[in-house]
């Protein structure tokens, strides 16, 4: 986050010193891509001291294809087939791409990483096969997070905001990490006048966004032209999915950082980050995905005086 602020405040060409860098995960990769994107084609960005193994990893994740950083030494060895462990960095700029992007990521993790057969016959009772049970909670979460980013990032005049996604599986610990990062307006600006926002801080905005039914455009009249109103439960449900899959969310926006593990922990950076996009990392255990039942995770806290609404289901 500090680096984000420094990069955003920098003018002219940029040299990033990554000599002390030891590890990059999908969140770091997508955040860096989102940060450097506005500079592509206009300024020169160099990373001359990037360790070889990290350069190889970033090259494998297609980072340099998206962000042409100079002075990076990339090993000339053949591209390893790592489809069973990672899903390369990709950029999503339109809502029309979101379903496909969510499906591709979820499918890669569910299929390649779990060896589940997509075409296996479904279970008669549930109608799903093993692949579906791995894929479904991931695709649901990714779809909602992508939609959130593509919708809200472009408020406050940030029409050119884009979303970066990447994913990786760590087989030694059985963990899946998925990252969705946008370079839009962040969470605080759209929620600034929301009655549920206590303090006007980035941390408070993150906490408000995690609460059910908090959205900057929940009322249809408040939606911008052509925009849909949101119920404000996408991030809430995704957080519960991560928890049900024995994981958590890490959410960053502005100078605020929030972990959803346990009862939740928030931090405010001591220095202004100078970056207002939203970065979300979803971490979960691969083997816990099939047990996630989204029907049990929807916000159930409805007002007591809500009228009974009969809905007809037929088979």
């Amino acid at each position: 986050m500090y680096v984000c602020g420094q990069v955003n405040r920098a003018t002219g060409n940029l040299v990033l010193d990554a000599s002390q860098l030891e590890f990059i995960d999908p969140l770091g990769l997508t955040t860096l891509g989102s940060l450097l994107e506005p500079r592509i084609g206009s300024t020169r960005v160099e990373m001359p001291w990037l360790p070889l193994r990290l350069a190889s990893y970033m090259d494998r994740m297609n980072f340099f294809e998206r962000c042409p950083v100079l002075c990076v030494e990339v090993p000339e060895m053949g591209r390893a087939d790592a489809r069973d462990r990672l899903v390369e960095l990709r950029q999503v700029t339109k809502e029309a791409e979101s379903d496909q992007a969510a499906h591709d990521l979820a499918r890669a993790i569910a299929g390649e990483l779990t060896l589940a057969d997509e075409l296996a016959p479904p279970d008669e009772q549930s109608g799903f096969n093993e692949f579906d049970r791995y894929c479904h909670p991931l695709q649901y979460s990714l779809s909602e997070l992508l939609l959130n980013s593509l919708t809200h990032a472009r408020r406050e005049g940030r029409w050119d905001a884009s979303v970066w996604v990447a994913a990786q599986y760590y087989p030694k610990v059985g963990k899946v990490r998925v990252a969705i990062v946008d370079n839009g307006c962040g969470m605080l600006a759209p929620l600034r006048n929301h009655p549920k926002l206590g303090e006007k801080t980035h941390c408070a905005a993150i906490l408000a966004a995690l609460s059910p039914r908090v959205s900057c455009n929940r009322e249809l009249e408040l939606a911008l032209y052509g925009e849909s109103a949101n119920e404000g439960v996408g991030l809430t449900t995704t957080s519960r999915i991560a928890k049900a899959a024995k994981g958590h969310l890490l959410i960053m926006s502005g100078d605020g950082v929030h972990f959803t593990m346990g009862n939740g922990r928030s931090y405010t950076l001591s220095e202004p980050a100078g970056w207002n996009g939203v970065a979300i990392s979803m971490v979960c255990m691969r083997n816990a995905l099939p047990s996630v039942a989204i029907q049990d995770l929807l916000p159930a806290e409805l007002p007591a005086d809500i009228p009974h609404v009969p809905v007809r289901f037929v088979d």
Partner: protein
Amino acid sequence: MFQCVLSIKLRHGLLAHAKVLSTATGGFCTQISSAERGKFMSTLISLMPLATGRMIGMRSKAQPVRREIESAISHGNEVVVDFNGVEATQSFVDELIGVLIFNRGPSVLQSLAFKHCSGNVKAIIQFVAADRSDQFVKRQRAASAAPRARDFSRSGFTSLHA
């Protein structure tokens, strides 16, 4: 667009004629008239063509389907939305029926039925229906209590609506 007329024997032994239409949305909309009941029309909308994998998430996919639903209801038809083989996110379902309920009230659900829904989809539909119905009722109460229109330009939100 194409259309054809099929004869279908329904569960109750009724012989019905059905028009099968491909729609601009890529979905399939079937209009079934019950010969015996005569005036009753039921429109069946299948969502399977909209799925990516087995999931439908995009709000923009729901908008043309909602317009088909509104058109069918305005002609006095019942609409059956078929979720056979698909899952959906809360955002999609909200765009599909939440907007209808918010604008028309929960009574619009009397003209709707949902078919072949998984447990997840049922729960999502019920959640959206209850949540948007609650919003509709509260908005009606607020409008009754304070008849002057609320000036959104002073609330810090911008809107490009005329």
